[in-house]
């Protein structure tokens, strides 16, 4: 089984979000970058398939050279080969288009992306890839089992889950549940050493398939002071919520 895991390179969840160049670009200064958490769950599930079913794992990122440490981390955790499409994507469609081209040329049985990237929160890349490659798609996937070509999976729905059967080739939008947090792996020394020897292919491109352009960013207004209510005056809280906030 050949697996491709899409890796988005995102600011760590504790990062302060700031913008530069006249509020048109995300300010990377001092920011720690990590594998997008949803992708990390997917990668860990892929490694499970590697260990149990002899799968091979390629990881792919559409980005500039600064994303390579993140790809190396994926190699250190257990992926076999990394691919970087050398392009600074303007939107989710560009990412989906480049990854789809790569899939069409290299053919995979299983493609794992995340439900959403925690930076731009597009929530669109896996669905676009599925339509561009005509591959079955399960979004918000929280369980994935494969035997031969048959897939048994679950997806999160509002208020519960749906159990689905499908076939390879398949793409998923993954999230926690594929594996648990305690299953995530921290790269060890041996993994890091091996990762240095693994192949990291850079694919050049001059295309710009984007269909939307990010123009500027703005941070929310700082909030006013909290209104404190004494624990002995619960009625006052209810009154404020009803009359002032109109929330009851």
């Amino acid at each position, binding site marked *: 089984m050949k697996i491709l895991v899409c890796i988005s390179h995102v*600011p760590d*969840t*504790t990062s302060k*979000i700031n*913008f530069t160049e006249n509020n048109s670009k*995300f300010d990377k200064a001092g920011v720690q970058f990590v594998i997008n958490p949803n992708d990390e769950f997917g990668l860990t599930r892929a490694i499970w398939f590697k260990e149990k079913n002899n799968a091979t794992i390629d990881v792919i990122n559409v980005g500039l050279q600064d994303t390579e440490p993140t790809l190396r981390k994926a190699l250190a955790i257990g992926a076999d080969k990394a691919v970087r499409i050398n392009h600074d994507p303007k939107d989710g469609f560009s990412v*989906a288009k480049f990854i789809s081209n790569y899939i069409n040329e290299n053919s995979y049985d299983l493609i794992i992306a995340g439900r959403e990237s*925690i930076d*731009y*929160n597009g*929530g*669109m890349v*896996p*669905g*676009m*890839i*599925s*339509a*561009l490659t005509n591959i*079955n*798609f*399960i*979004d*918000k996937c929280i369980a994935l089992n494969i035997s031969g070509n048959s897939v*048994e999976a679950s997806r*999160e*729905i*509002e*208020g*519960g*889950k*749906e*159990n*689905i*059967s*499908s076939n390879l080739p398949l793409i998923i939008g993954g999230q926690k*549940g594929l594996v648990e*947090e305690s299953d995530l792996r921290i790269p060890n020394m041996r993994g890091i050493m091996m990762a240095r020897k693994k192949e990291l292919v850079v694919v050049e491109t001059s295309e710009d398939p984007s*269909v*939307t*352009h*990010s*123009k*500027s*960013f*703005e*941070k*929310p207004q700082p*909030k006013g002071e*909290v209104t*404190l209510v004494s*624990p002995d005056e*619960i009625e006052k*809280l*209810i009154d404020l*919520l*009803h009359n002032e*906030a109109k*929330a*009851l």
Partner: protein
Amino acid sequence: MEILIFAETDDKGNLKKDAFEIASYAFEISSEKGGSVNALCFNASNAESLSYYGVNKIINSKNEELKNFDPSNYSKCICEVFNNEKCNLILLSSSSNSKYIGGMLSVLTDASYVTNVISKPSDDEKMRVVRNTFTNKAFETVEIIKNKIILAISKNSFGLKENPVKSEFVEINFNISESRNKVKSIDRATNKVTIADADIVVSGGRGLKGPENWHLIENLAEVLGGATACSKPVSDLGWRPHSEHVGQTGKPVSSNLYIAIGISGAIQHLAGVNSSKVKVVINTDPEAPFFKAADYGIVGDAFEVVPKLIDKLKEFKAANE
């Protein structure tokens, strides 16, 4: 601008509140920029109520094969109507199912697709919209390149506005292909308000000490007709199901009212609740960071405050019925 909205139904066939919200949004765009509003729904039992929200043409497909959500068939049907009605804008809600089909649909229709939209499109030469990004830590202005557009509207960012019109009703039939993914079974807690649909969310953190105390959260949610939620450690500890965990790595909440009990307010938690309108915190520690993010707060012990709050709310409900 010719608009098509995908008006989603719940599992009983009733249109969801989201459907009326995007209809309200569509009506405002069409009254500013001209054009009409079309709505597509599948097996909706109350399709006519879209007339109250300004929909000119209501297209309802009554088809057993479309009873269960199926991403590839749903997106094909929406694409077909979009082309037949010569539309240039599709509006989706931000529900799980709508987002599931959004990316696929944008490829099928060759459209620019923007999610988490919180503003109306601007009148610039090239249309622009504002969206939530960085998990509610920033807003982004996006320029749209194509002349076909799909916008997924962020929940509760626009609200409901009644605009009664005389609507045309159309029934339509589609050729449905066999589902590529087969739904085997659905596990769903019935009669429970979901976080995604709730106007009020009551959420508990590690300050509640253990799962045996969750009746406090559940009873408060019940009086308010709200959903229950929790912080990440609470679901990691197995006190509550993972599906209730809100935050940057969990569910986003954009309710009208969010009540956080025994939650410290870590940056990853707040990222998930920033887009809720009114936030209330109950915490013993006045230094808890949640007090900086909340609108109203009580410094106090949840085990004393919450039972009192439940009693007083019952009195309030009784008096206001």
